[in-house]
């Protein structure tokens, strides 16, 4: 399937998941186990995406300017910087490290 195909399929799936919440019995979706899995999945996926974007180089690992971006972003977040500033600082860190 083309990239457009996967985009459309993922969009349909995203809306369907949202809508499912409105259709199934409340007690079913709000069972502690369901909420917990939804929560741990969110944490695990975001942690994995952070790692993948920081380290992956094709099928392998590379420790490069992106590690600097990760560190700078972590410091900015610890100092309670807003989302957009964190993203900009990440870009600046990676760009500067490449200039060195």
């Amino acid at each position, binding site marked *: 399937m083309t990239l457009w195909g996967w985009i459309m399929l*993922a969009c349909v799936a*995203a*809306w369907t998941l949202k809508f499912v*919440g409105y259709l199934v019995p409340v007690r079913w979706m709000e069972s502690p186990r369901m909420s917990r*899995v939804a929560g741990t999945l*969110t944490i*695990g996926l975001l*942690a994995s*995406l952070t790692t993948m*974007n920081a380290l992956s180089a094709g099928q392998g690992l590379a420790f490069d300017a992106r590690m600097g971006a990760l560190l700078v972003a972590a410091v900015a977040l610890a100092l309670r910087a807003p989302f957009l500033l964190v993203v900009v600082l990440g870009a600046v860190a990676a760009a500067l490290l490449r200039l060195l």
Partner: protein
Amino acid sequence: MRERLTPAVRIGLSIALATGLYGISFGALAVASGFSVAQTAALSLLMFTGGSQFAFIGVIAAGGAGNAAFAAATLLGIRNAVYGAQINRMLMPRGWLRPLAAQVTIDESAATAASQSDPAEQRRGFWVAGIGVYLLWNLFTLVGALLGDALGDPRRWGLDGAAVAAFLALLWPRLRSREPVAIAIVCALVTMLALPWVPPGVPILLAATVAAIWGWFGQGPADEGLEPDVAPVSDKEASR
């Protein structure tokens, strides 16, 4: 007009602005990951759930296939079903309002509604945050995509570093106690160990499996990981 700006409306508007603005980073990163401006805009208009959108482009940017991007985005969207059930219980939307409410059911609108106790305020908070984020998120996605298109070589501008920062910033507000931190570290390690051995896009699915098993058998609080990227602050803080 003054009395129409109830606390829920004010919180909804401030969240819409803060969240909508970072649509710029999504737009720029999507284009840097090789998506066309039209594909980028379609993701924000139709998928409209920030985490899943970032996941989709993040997997493709790392060399993953379309099916892996689809899987990562869809798994991240599961929490929206939980929000849908919460909103359904609070607002009970009927008829054509239901599919519309579903589309704007995201971290931010659910959190804004949940931050209120009066049903009328919950309703206002949900719709103002939901529609507000939708409009601004799409507007700023387009701005970011056009900007990214004009910038050229993404690596020169450190946009790959921006992607790393964006994912960490999405994860950060969810790391409020020891268990989420442990989950995040284990899933990061699983990803790192798997990266050299399996095709791109598969490590994230392994990490998701570990996280799901952890949640299924775990004993942690039920709302862990279900925090919005931009938390609805109390009215006093919002007007500071």
